[in-house]
């Protein structure tokens, strides 16, 4: 058993035993990402916060039944996605993550022969701490992620920011691996365009 896996088993046991500090640890690690993924689905910050809270209650209620077949994070996000989707459904909206009908917003950058109309800029050094237009680069990155469609947004938060495995992300969102790669690529292009506009 890997160290990370062993640590997670211990953490799950502590959660099951009702240890508040264990819960605090998991909450701090995932809560803001849970809300950010949920906002993409339910389209309201207040509702997303409610959905995240319901998710945590369900997590603690059912933790004894968690068998470790997926990672804890993956299990928590699955619960969130189900809850957020049923909330959207109640509001009369079906949310799918496959990104059908979205494009990469890049087609306009090329001429008829697939060449750049304008040569891309050479970006100066971009670090998370760098300030652009009065805000840190990371603030701009997060704002850009929040403007993405639900599929792209979920993939970039789960796969890149929360570091979940590719298979786990596909299972949580019910999409193929090829689909996930396309969504991740488009999500990056969306963030890239936002940053490029600031440079």
């Amino acid at each position: 058993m890997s160290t990370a896996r062993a640590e997670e088993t211990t953490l799950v046991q502590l959660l099951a035993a009702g240890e508040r500090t264990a819960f605090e640890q998991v909450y701090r690690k995932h809560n803001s990402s849970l809300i950010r993924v949920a906002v993409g689905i339910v389209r309201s910050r207040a509702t997303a916060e409610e959905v995240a809270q319901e998710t945590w209650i369900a997590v603690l209620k059912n933790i004894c039944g968690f068998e470790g077949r997926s990672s804890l994070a993956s299990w928590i996000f699955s619960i969130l996605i189900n809850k957020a989707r049923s909330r959207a459904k109640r509001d009369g909206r079906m949310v799918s993550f496959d990104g059908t009908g979205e494009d990469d917003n890049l087609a306009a950058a090329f001429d008829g022969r697939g060449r750049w109309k304008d040569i891309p800029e050479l970006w100066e050094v971009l670090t998370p701490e760098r300030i652009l237009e009065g805000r840190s680069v990371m603030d701009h990155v997060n704002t850009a992620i929040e403007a993405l469609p639900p599929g792209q947004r979920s993939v970039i938060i789960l796969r890149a920011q929360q570091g979940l495995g590719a298979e786990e992300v596909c299972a949580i969102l019910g999409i193929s691996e090829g689909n996930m790669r396309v969504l991740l690529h488009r999500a990056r292009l969306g963030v890239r365009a936002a940053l490029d506009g600031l440079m």
Partner: protein
Amino acid sequence: MLSCQEVATRASALIDGELSTWEGLQMRLHLAMCKGCERFIGQVRTTRDLTENLTAADTHEEADDGRISEILSKLHEEKKQGG
């Protein structure tokens, strides 16, 4: 020879190391001759780096304590009701 648009479509696959040897070779051939695409790949790589591995940055909001207590008391209520 790949067009710039085709290179852009494969940018993530290139930087994530998901291209076949042949595809990778075609990309490198184009990039060696095209400043625009070289810059574009650099931008996508920077974007990837900025959007990855934020897991270390756990959030610490002052309101968290209150929210955590609320969750725990709601859980307690639901358990009492046999929910």
